[in-house]
């Protein structure tokens, strides 16, 4: 997934190499990067296969093929097997995204299993790459938290192991792959964040954003061709302007208009740009915007979050287990933890809407205080199909540059 991004510097670090041509330095960097991937592939079969086998058969069951806690002989046995492995390797889980910092702490505190959290700011594409290039290594990610499209394409490529958590039946059918290759975990609505101290009247709808008083102030969390939340921001804009899940073009037209009126601010929103007052209005997931509020309050900024009525767009991320997970039992225990009431409530504590929220509201296990803190929204969400999303992305890839450049 694409989180607050500070890495992006693989290729542009050192303008000065002791080489004649900087581009060569750069290509050498790229080359080295590619080579690393290549050697990673090559080294795969030899590195960790034996340990994985040993771990897997520790509890008498092969954890790598277990598709439920029952396959271990119950959750206790799964915990036992996971503890024997002692470690879980994760990537792309930023501590300030959907409460992952606390979730990781809570998991380690509960089971005594150390979590190696690597490259928290990595994207979904990076996660899929890591699964492929680190196959068989101890450093391969055990579990993935990825955009749903990446989950679907990864499942098609055969990268994931099927697994059904104990609360499987409570996950709505349209939020999971039937065999358990992936299952949605948490999500949010596209929202408009706004610095209420600097802006007299905060915008509440997409239509509001075009008002002249917001000149140079409306930003996205990145580029929609790269960042999931920005893509959702454009999709929501389409819904707000006569488009549909089948037609994202009105969203592009909206941002073109926003650019023409001078309201569009191309700066990528980060906590720093909010604090500085550069991105006074930011279109982002509601859990990001809502999570800014308490942090910004310490700095004297009143950060407000509204879910625009005219562009309601809800989307969830998905969990999957790496088929070649170096810690297969721990990976499965992690999923059980995330889909327990405790794990789901932790997401909720980070303003994200967990997939089991409706079920938990029904059976009363929901953390009511955390739920009350969510930005209010009316009605039930609707979801585009995968084909609709893919088409929208294609239109966006071709048209976004033309819409906002110049």
């Amino acid at each position: 997934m694409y989180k607050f991004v500070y890495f992006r510097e693989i290729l542009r670090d050192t303008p000065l190499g002791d080489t004649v041509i900087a581009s060569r330095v750069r290509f050498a960097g790229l080359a080295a990067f590619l080579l690393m991937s290549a050697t990673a592939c090559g080294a795969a079969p030899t590195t960790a296969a034996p340990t994985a086998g040993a771990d897997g058969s520790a509890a008498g069951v092969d954890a790598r093929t277990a598709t439920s806690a029952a396959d271990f002989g119950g959750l206790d046995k799964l915990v036992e097997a996971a503890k024997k492995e002692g470690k879980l390797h994760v990537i792309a889980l930023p501590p300030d995204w959907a409460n992952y910092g606390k979730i990781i702490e809570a998991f380690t505190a509960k089971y005594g299993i150390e979590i190696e959290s690597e490259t928290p700011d990595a994207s979904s594409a990076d996660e899929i790459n890591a699964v492929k290039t680190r196959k068989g290594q101890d450093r391969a990610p055990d579990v993935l938290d990825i955009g749903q499209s990446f989950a679907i394409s990864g499942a098609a490529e055969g990268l994931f192991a099927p697994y059904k958590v104990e609360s499987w039946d409570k996950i709505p059918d349209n939020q999971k792959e039937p065999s358990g290759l992936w299952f949605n975990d948490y999500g949010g609505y596209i929202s408009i964040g706004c610095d209420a101290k600097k802006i007299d009247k905060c915008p509440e709808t997409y239509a509001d954003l075009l008002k002249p008083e917001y000149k140079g102030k409306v930003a996205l969390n990145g580029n929609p061709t790269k960042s999931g939340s920005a893509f959702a921001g454009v999709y929501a804009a389409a819904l707000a302007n006569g488009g549909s899940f089948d037609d994202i073009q009105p969203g592009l037209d909206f941002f073109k208009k926003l650019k023409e009126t001078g309201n569009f601010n191309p700066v990528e929103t980060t906590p720093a740009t909010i604090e500085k007052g550069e991105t006074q209005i930011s279109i982002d997931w509601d859990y990001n915007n809502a999570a800014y509020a308490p942090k910004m309050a310490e700095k004297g900024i009143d950060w407000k979050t509204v879910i625009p009525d005219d562009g309601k767009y809800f989307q969830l991320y998905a969990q999957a287990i790496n088929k070649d997970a170096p810690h297969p039992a721990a990976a499965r225990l992690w999923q059980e933890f995330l889909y327990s009431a405790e794990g789901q409530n932790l997401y909720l504590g980070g303003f994200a809407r967990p997939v089991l929220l409706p079920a938990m509201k029904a059976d009363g296990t929901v953390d009511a205080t955390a739920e009350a803190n969510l930005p209010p929204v009316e009605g039930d969400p609707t979801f585009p199909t995968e084909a609709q999303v893919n088409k929208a992305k294609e239109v966006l890839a071709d048209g976004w540059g033309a819409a906002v450049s110049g």
Partner: protein
Amino acid sequence: MTVPAVTAAAPRGGRPRSKNWVGALPLLVVTAVAFGIPALTLLVGAFTVKDPVTKVSSLGTANLSRSLQGAYLNALISSVQLSAVVAVAAAVAGTFLAQAVVTSRFTALREAVLTFSGVLANFGGVPLAFIWIATLGNSGVITTALGLGPGVLYNFWGLALVYMYFSVPLMVLVVTPALDGLRPQWREAAQNNGATTWQFWRYVGVPVLTPALLGGVVLLFGGAFAAYATAYAMVGSTVPLVTLQIAEALTGDVLIGYENVALALSLDMIVVALLVMAVYLPLQKRSSRWLR
């Protein structure tokens, strides 16, 4: 670096040349492994077309032709324009700054500028973008103080300005040794023969410096051409750049299955770099000929 060409004009004959390559062997091996193999992978990947439905790969030019159309072509052109503007402007500014420093009577100033250049030349990425956003962004310190409207920074010229921030210091570093190599005796000799300052620079100074200046321009071009994190954080797609397109295709949260287009774009970049070299090398050879 190209720079020592001036000072390294010392005779190099003597030893038989035939065995020189042995010493370079480790370098060649490293280059072949660390550069050759990935370059080959890139080449093959750029020509590999994956059918989105059947997932079958075949060789073809679909990626390349796609990388030279529409948004991708715009990005490539915009990248070349930006890099060219930055390279030339920073080369000129850097050379004058370096000359001022070299001829200064204060050693401390010279040392300070050079050290500072060493730091700033390596400055880039998101922090650089943020510095400029905080200074000249829509709510930047200077923007507010001078009452400038929004959008001063977030366009082609704004980005060029930001790139100058690391390009000018780089030029200073590159050209200073060359300026040092301009011996005072040459100037005195020219003056003794009645040359004006203009004539000295026209017929002696600039010709001697040309290889270093050209090398500098190419270096700066490459630096600007390959940069992208600063641009991403600051202007997103409002200034389309080919590097940004590659990043989006390779490591994003949105596009799936564009990896080979990214490799094709990388190949385009290599071709552009080769074209620049193809122009630079003969020029460099010609201008440094009489130095030997």
